[in-house]
């Protein structure tokens, strides 16, 4: 028999032996091996010691009214509204998936808004007295045109004098 400690796949043989769950044939083989293997022999002795040390922990029995309280909860759950059931299920750690879900929703919503900027009303650039920049340019152009026309009007009589009678 190869040393069980040397290979990870066979280490459970040692645990099973300590737990008394190894069949007779394999137990005999292991015992024969440990006679010549100090490492396995030490391992089994230490494991057996820990195994019996753990026996010291015996939990207390359940409360006498455990069943009665459980049936009360079952009856209450049967008549409870759906949101009450949801809250109860979230009490014992069921709320944890809510956080990644909330983050996922926020990311999706953010992506949607970035892809659809038209969905958000665009803020117009600030204007002076409610007149846009393009309107101001147009007004300035119009004033220039009027001034040019006046200049033309003032020049026109002098040119008439040059006409032949």
């Amino acid at each position, binding site marked *: 028999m190869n040393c069980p400690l040397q290979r990870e796949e066979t280490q459970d043989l040692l645990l099973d032996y300590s737990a008394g769950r190894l069949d007779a044939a394999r137990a005999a083989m292991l015992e024969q091996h440990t006679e010549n293997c100090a490492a396995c022999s030490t391992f089994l002795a*230490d494991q057996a*010691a820990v195994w019996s040390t753990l026996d010291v922990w*015996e939990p207390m029995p359940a409360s006498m009214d455990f069943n009665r309280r459980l049936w009360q909860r079952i009856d209450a759950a049967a008549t409870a509204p759906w949101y009450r059931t949801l809250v109860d299920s979230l009490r014992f750690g*069921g709320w944890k998936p809510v956080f990644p879900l909330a983050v996922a929703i926020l990311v999706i919503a953010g992506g949607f808004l970035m892809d659809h900027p038209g969905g958000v009303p665009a803020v117009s650039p600030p204007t002076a007295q409610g007149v846009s920049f393009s309107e101001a340019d147009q007004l300035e152009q119009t004033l220039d045109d009027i001034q040019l026309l006046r200049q033309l009007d003032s020049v026109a009589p002098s040119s008439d004098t040059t006409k032949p009678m």
Partner: protein
Amino acid sequence: MVQGVNTITGAAQALDLDAQLMLRVRDGDDDSFRLLLEKHRSPVIRFVYRMVQDQAISEELAQEVFLRVYRSRATYEPTARFTTWLFRIATHLALNWLRDGRNERGHQRLDDEGDGDMPVREVADRKPSVEQRMVYQTRLQEVRDAIALLPEKQRAAVLMHKYEEMEYVQIAQVLECSESAVKSLLFRAYETLRARLAHMASGAVR
């Protein structure tokens, strides 16, 4: 095709008694649920108690386990052993409770307040002396602390292996990992426990 049908029939015949009871619960038989509760109440409370190390919380969580089993009765399908399903719920709830940090609320262990923890078999002959009780309490506390310091999955694996005597394959199904991963978890966990409890071990060996 015929082989497939035979496999399904074989699986159905191999249903454990608990799964058959649960199927009756699915059909509306509350008495079968009472039987399941009687049979598995103590193992579930024991396991959860050793996980969270708080008597009151362990009972609350164990109640939640059975409440969830009852609520899920309508959709129950015996795809695995009933106890595998039961302990998966119990492990899930216990780990969530531990991860939520609710165990940091002052460690008010109700069972610590009493002094009646000593097993009956040790007091069969006569009432234990004060010294015996103190030694026992010290040993118990060291064992509890050693297990509490294990990583969560290792702790769950050890408790199922040592105290509930579950097989590797079933522990693997409960923890939703491979059988070899469970063996590895157990090997490392016992290695840690051997180191932590070495000083107690000499007195424990028969």
